[in-house]
């Protein structure tokens, strides 16, 4: 009862923050230089087009930029138009069709990525998001719509995953509420840093910052998780439970008010330790969109939860943060619910499969999957860095062939990360289930014998 009260108070404190951020449009929403609406008329002679703005229905006459012609403007299709303020009054910079035409190939691609993303999410608490957004973009969705639709798919999936893993006794609701409340503040800090970098160094600087953070965090944290999982796998015979890291043990000894007891995670720790972990999770979520890459290792190595509890709790955090993000994107009207629902059709099954998979594997297997995913994703992001450095003018522009190669390395590394993680989870789950069946047969034989 007391636990529930604390969670409710935390959520109560969180709500005004959520509402204010959401109503303000938040930092994650689209830029004000972007208009949403439908072109009703195109005039090739005057090089103008009339846009009926979404919501207000106001008619705006927009001018073509120097490189455009009338065939670039599609009438009666919902579009996002970005304006080029430097070129003059109401000059079109770019036009993105908001809703791509769905073909069978695109539908199948979204379902497959959704299934493996869901499996990964159910198993390690996060995942899928890092590949879904680029996948949607390469299928033809504008960046903002891809991020919004991904966010809207993330929170129902996380909700189903949290429910399942809560039933298995793996979710620490109190830890999830404490982490999410600080993570949301972390997101705000992350967005402020992003905006500062954007104003100082522009889009290329922002891209470079995101990629460098991505690679540094993923290589260090992923490398450590990999080393730890390898150590544990070698002494797997006596590894039924989990071993609390030395750092977490030292942190738990710090008696600084307020001390919080997390019953499921079996940890009593000062709130002052959970706050930085939550903030870092939020900041990373705002920077690279996958806060779980720091949240789960943080809960394991700093707070001292087991990998099973940490990954399950992360799903709870993803639900709260995903719901908050979805409200923001929904207010901007950028969610393509068709993509969201196609991904959900498979990921809702995948997430439950991943969740039940955790009951068959040992704790270190979750760490192996997490480390493999993080390290391969780091390669994907690392391949983008030379291009961004060139964009900033810090080195000569890349040779066209090299740029194309690096881009495809980046994309295929993401697909590889999903494939490898999906493969390890499936094999570990099948082996675990077969072992369990063999044990049950043995027990039955003994009791009859």
């Amino acid at each position: 009862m007391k636990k529930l009260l604390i969670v409710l108070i935390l959520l109560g404190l969180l709500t005004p923050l959520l509402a204010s951020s959401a109503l303000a449009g938040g930092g994650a929403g689209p830029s004000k230089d972007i208009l949403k609406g439908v072109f009703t008329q195109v005039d090739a002679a005057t090089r103008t087009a009339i846009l009926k703005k979404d919501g207000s229905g106001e008619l705006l006459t927009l001018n073509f930029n120097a490189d455009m012609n009338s065939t670039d403007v599609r009438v009666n299709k919902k579009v996002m138009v970005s304006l080029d303020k430097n070129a003059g009054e109401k000059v079109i910079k770019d036009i993105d069709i908001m809703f791509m035409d769905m073909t069978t190939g695109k539908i199948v691609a979204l379902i497959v990525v959704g299934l493996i993303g869901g499996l990964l999410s159910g198993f390690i608490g996060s995942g899928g998001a890092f590949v879904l957004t680029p996948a949607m973009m390469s299928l033809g969705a504008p960046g903002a719509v891809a991020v919004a639709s991904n966010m809207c798919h993330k929170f129902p999936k996380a909700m189903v995953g949290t429910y399942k893993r809560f039933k298995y006794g793996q979710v620490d609701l109190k830890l999830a509420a404490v982490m999410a409340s600080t993570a949301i503040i972390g997101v705000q800090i992350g967005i402020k840093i992003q905006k500062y970098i954007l104003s100082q160094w522009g889009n290329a600087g922002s891209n470079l910052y995101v990629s460098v953070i991505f690679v540094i965090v993923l290589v260090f944290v992923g490398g450590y998780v990999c080393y730890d999982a390898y150590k544990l796998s070698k002494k797997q015979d006596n590894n039924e439970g989990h071993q609390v890291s030395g750092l977490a043990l030292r942190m738990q000894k710090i008696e600084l008010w307020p001390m919080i007891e997390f019953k499921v995670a079996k940890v009593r720790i000062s709130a002052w330790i959970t706050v930085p972990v939550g903030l870092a999770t939020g900041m990373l979520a705002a920077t690279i969109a996958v806060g779980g890459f720091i949240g789960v290792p943080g809960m394991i190595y700093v707070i001292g939860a087991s990998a099973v509890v940490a990954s399950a709790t992360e799903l709870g955090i993803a639900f709260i943060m995903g719901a908050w993000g979805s409200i923001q994107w929904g207010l901007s009207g950028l969610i393509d619910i068709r993509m969201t629902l196609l991904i959900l059709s498979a990921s809702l099954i995948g997430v439950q499969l991943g969740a039940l998979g955790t009951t068959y594997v040992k704790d270190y297997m979750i760490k192996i999957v997490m480390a493999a995913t993080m390290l391969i994703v780091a390669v994907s992001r690392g391949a983008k860095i030379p291009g961004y450095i060139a964009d900033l003018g810090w080195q000569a522009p890349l040779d066209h062939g090299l740029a194309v190669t690096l881009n495809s390395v980046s994309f295929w590394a993401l697909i590889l990360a999903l494939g490898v993680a999906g493969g390890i989870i499936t094999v570990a789950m099948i082996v675990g289930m077969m072992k369990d069946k063999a044990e049950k047969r043995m027990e039955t034989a003994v009791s009859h014998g």
Partner: protein
Amino acid sequence: MAITNFDKHASAVTFAEAGEHQTAREMMADTKSPKRVPVKAPVKKPYLQTVIFGIISLASYLYIFSNEKLVTDVFTRGGVYAAWPIGTALFFSFVHGAFGSNLLTLLGLEAKKK
């Protein structure tokens, strides 16, 4: 020759009739009833639930994808219309999530019982 429970009971009755109640009791205490193996209750598979949730889910998918105009116009107006995509995502997570859960049970994929 092995002494069966029947032999033990018969001997205990003889002692009891002879007034040796204590001995009879001791002999009865020695007898063991055969170990009962609990009969497993047949597991009910959720066929009906899977079919019902499957039909609702499929019908909802068909409805959404055959009314693309509604999705592209109303769902993306922004502001209070944000309730549409978020509500829809929640509705599908309940219906399709329940279908998925029942489907996995039907396929025999269940969490390990400790």
